[in-house]
């Protein structure tokens, strides 16, 4: 780890100000990606602005048919939350299976989606549930939020403050884990909300995305009968020592079918 300035802030406004003053600052939520990257000397921000003390960023509530989760709410808190378990049980289960206990007790929803690791779990849920990402500056729809591998619509000094999930009629997440890292080789979140069935896909490609071909095959119904016939663009799939593009494309369909079945 290289030397850096550590800034602990108590409010979103102070965090924004600290970022604007920094030469090459980074916000840190749970630090579960940021700190290992810095330890490996792969990142060297001039300033690390720790959002851990910003009370306004934590909390879980249900308001107007929406589940609202503060950005600094840990995965463990989401997993254990009675509100989440009742409102969107699939989201609680997803959170409860991220990483390991240490990661779940430090890692946060906001940190996960702002980092946008292409193999992270939350982005699939945010997309499939049609969530809205509230930031320090604006509200961003899920589909516009994730723009590329480790890239989002966030500006440098913009902070995710909360995510608002419309309550679905049914939802399920199916993750095919990398046997080493336990990240998603493929993760598929299926949600039926307001009569529409959406599919959020993570791990398969460079960017978490809506599975529009899969959604078309489902036709708004929780019936996986047409999924086998879907042709997915293999050339867009990630490929590594754990899973080739062809295998990933196959797994997207298998995980979709299983998620649809789990919704029933």
């Amino acid at each position, binding site marked *: 780890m*290289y030397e850096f300035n550590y800034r602990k802030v108590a409010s979103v406004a102070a965090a924004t100000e600290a970022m604007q003053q920094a030469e090459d600052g980074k916000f840190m939520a749970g630090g579960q990606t940021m700190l290992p990257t810095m330890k490996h000397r792969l990142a060297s921000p001039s300033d690390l602005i720790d959002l851990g003390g910003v009370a306004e960023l934590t909390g879980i509530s249900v308001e107007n048919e929406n589940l609202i989760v503060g950005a600094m709410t840990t995965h463990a808190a989401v997993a254990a939350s009675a509100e989440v378990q009742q409102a969107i049980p699939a989201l609680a289960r997803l959170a409860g299976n991220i990483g390991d206990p240490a990661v779940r007790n430090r890692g946060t929803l906001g940190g996960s989606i702002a980092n946008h690791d292409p193999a992270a779990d939350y982005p699939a849920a945010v997309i499939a549930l049609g969530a809205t990402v509230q930031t320090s500056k604006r509200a961003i729809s899920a589909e516009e939020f994730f723009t590329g591998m480790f890239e989002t619509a966030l500006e440098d000094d913009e902070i995710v403050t909360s995510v608002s999930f419309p309550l679905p009629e049914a939802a399920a997440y199916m993750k095919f884990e990398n*046997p*080493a*890292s336990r*990240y998603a080789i493929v993760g598929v979140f299926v949600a039926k909300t307001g009569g529409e069935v959406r599919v959020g896909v993570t791990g398969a490609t460079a960017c978490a995305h809506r599975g529009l071909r899969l959604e078309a095959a489902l036709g708004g119904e929780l019936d996986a009968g047409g999924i086998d016939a879907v042709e997915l663009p293999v050339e867009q799939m990630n490929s590594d*020592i754990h*899973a080739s593009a062809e*295998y990933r494309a196959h*797994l997207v369909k298998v995980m979709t079918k299983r998620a649809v079945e789990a919704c029933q």
Partner: protein
Amino acid sequence: MNENGIGASVRRKEDQRFLIGKGNYTDDINVAGQTHAVFVRSPHAHAEIKGIDCSDALAAPGVVAVLTGDDLAADGIGPLICGVTVTSDDGEPHRAPAHPALAQGKVNYVGDHVAIVIAETRAQARDAAELVDVDYNVLPAVVDTSSAADSGQPQIHEVAPDNVCYNWPFGDKDGVEAAFAGAHKVSKLDLVNNRMVTNPMEPRAALGEYNPGTDEITLHLTTQNPHVHRLVLSAFNQLAPEHKLRVVGPDVGGGFGAKIFVYAEELVVGWACRKIKRPVKWNGDRSEAFLADAHGRDHVSTAEMAMDENGKFLAMRVQTQANLGAYLSTFSTMVPSYLYAFLLAGQYSTPLIYSEVKAVFTNTAPVDACRGAGRPEATYLVERLVDICAADMGLDPAEIRRRNFIPVDAFPYQTPVVQCYDSGDYPAALDKAMELADYSGFSARAEEAKSRGKLRGIGLSSYVEACGIAPSAAVGQLGAGVGLWESAQVRFNPTGNVQVFTGTHSHGQGHETTFAQLVCDQLGVPIENIEVIHGDTAKTQFGMGTYGSRSLAVGGVAIARACDKLIAKGKKIAAHALEAAEGDIEFADGNFSVAGTDKAMNIAEVAFTAYVPHSYPEGVEPGFDENAFFDPTNFSFPAGTHICEVEVDPDTGVVEVVKYSAVDDFGKLINPMIVEGQVHGGIAHGVGQALLEGCSYDSEGQLITASYMDYAMPRADNLPCFDIDYAPTNPPDNPLGVKGCGEAGAIGAPPAVINAISNALGVRHIDMPATPETVWRAAQQAAAVSS
């Protein structure tokens, strides 16, 4: 039975300090004036070094020294050695390229050692290490095992044309060919034994201290064999004379073979602390462990079996290409030769066996012993081939094994490949394992699984291994540079408690308990009054250390022999005190008594008398402290049958191990709980190799699986609860009646798992690691063939 003696599952004495965080590992030790070292490592698999500019690093804050291969050479330190000679087919010794501890003009793998940077803090050393400017001329790399010796490959070492270390043919080639020519059927299999990273929990570390007053170097190391380290560092690496070098292996967090070897970092830290006249600590991180710990396995083989019309094995023929990496690690040459080819008989009476092993250099980390070392490779090949034979003959895998087992009445059994098996009852272990596994109920379970869309398979592995290494004369004939006896000293203190000094080293095996039980059982001393001491050349007599499941089978016997001497001496002392003839003294349960009387004396009283010899037998030395050395007359041959049952999800290729049964012959068990723990760990290691662990380099020699993000270790949720039992025999060559147990699981498990997967999929073979994608593709192909 003594409640804490042989056969009791005594809770581990050493766990108190581990559980309360009071273990004392190398990195826990800090000394006044200590500096911190970081190694500059090669980022290239193969490159010439045109120059090294250390000036920026030397000027960096806190830097004490930056030393390179030139400094090392100027002081005449090194090179590192390989201690076992294998004679190649041209009659010459294996090709042994120079192995400098810091590179001299060339680097040969990613992670190779280029320079040591020493600073006041570790962070300063790390910062400065980035400032060492190495001018590399990158060369094409040789990475792949099977093609390393092909023409047109870059040559890594001048002394090794075609990158060949040795060609080692072994066995009766003509006899084997004649048997193949006349065989009813020949079964053949190509297979790969996947490369593994050994992965002990504690990364390697070294702390060197030099005392100018005594001219002595003290090295704390993560070592499985402190005396072997001292011997090699002194006699071959010129670090310091043996009596001026103290090596301490304090608590060590797992070894699995990787901490046997004398590594560059250890030699360089020992040399540097004297050079700069300050203590130097190096604490390797996990990335360095992946890059520069010796790796294991990495064979590519073809195996063939000739059979008669009853499926009886007539002859076996094996060709293996083994990757030794960029340099020869300390015992590397013996792993794919003596520790491999001598086990190719397996549990079978195959009369003729011929093997050819070609050991090659590549631009990868050195490869050496990893839990099992050669025996897992042999067992995997034999037990996979036997399943292929069963398929080709239309026999049940259990039946073909039964037809070829070495008969129970044939022991001791001389195999055609050097080893003479001590004892065994292979049908007994198979029967018991089949019962434990409910083998006969398998088809019903497979049907039920099918109704859930799962493919269920069952696989057998009937392994035998050679451990308890080793008879010194035997290994000497084979080209080893050392003897492999073991030593012990059992010392009573005047107050009656006992210190047991062993030349073995415990790094997770529980010796402090098992050996205390031996002494408790034999001498009748309460177990809490017995302390086992190991791991410090300044405390213990010369010993050979711990590897090859030898500590109990060899070191335990040395302890028992020292106890025998104490009892013999105690009889003289007791006879004098009890006014009886020595011949009338009996010893049992800690008491010396006069036969037929109630006159008796406890061994603690005898010890006290020996240290306060006011009234004492004439001609007997004072003191109650004996040592013994034990050189075994044979290896130890644990054996057993493991049965694995898997369920494959054909849609994803995920394999779940749903049932695992193991029946082993370890002879007599001293502490069944500790043995069971060793079996559990061994099976986990073996299942890990079969399903998860595949060390992978890219074509340029960059290690792709260089962290736990990509290198998959077995975890609890990859494993079922194991069903474990024993089918012991009594090995006549071992005075305690014990066999080794530390490696058996890692040896027996991989073929059991792969046999089960092949069975589930209905395919002939699938290579390790059987990752989901590999299995899914095999399932797709099998489905395409059958439809």
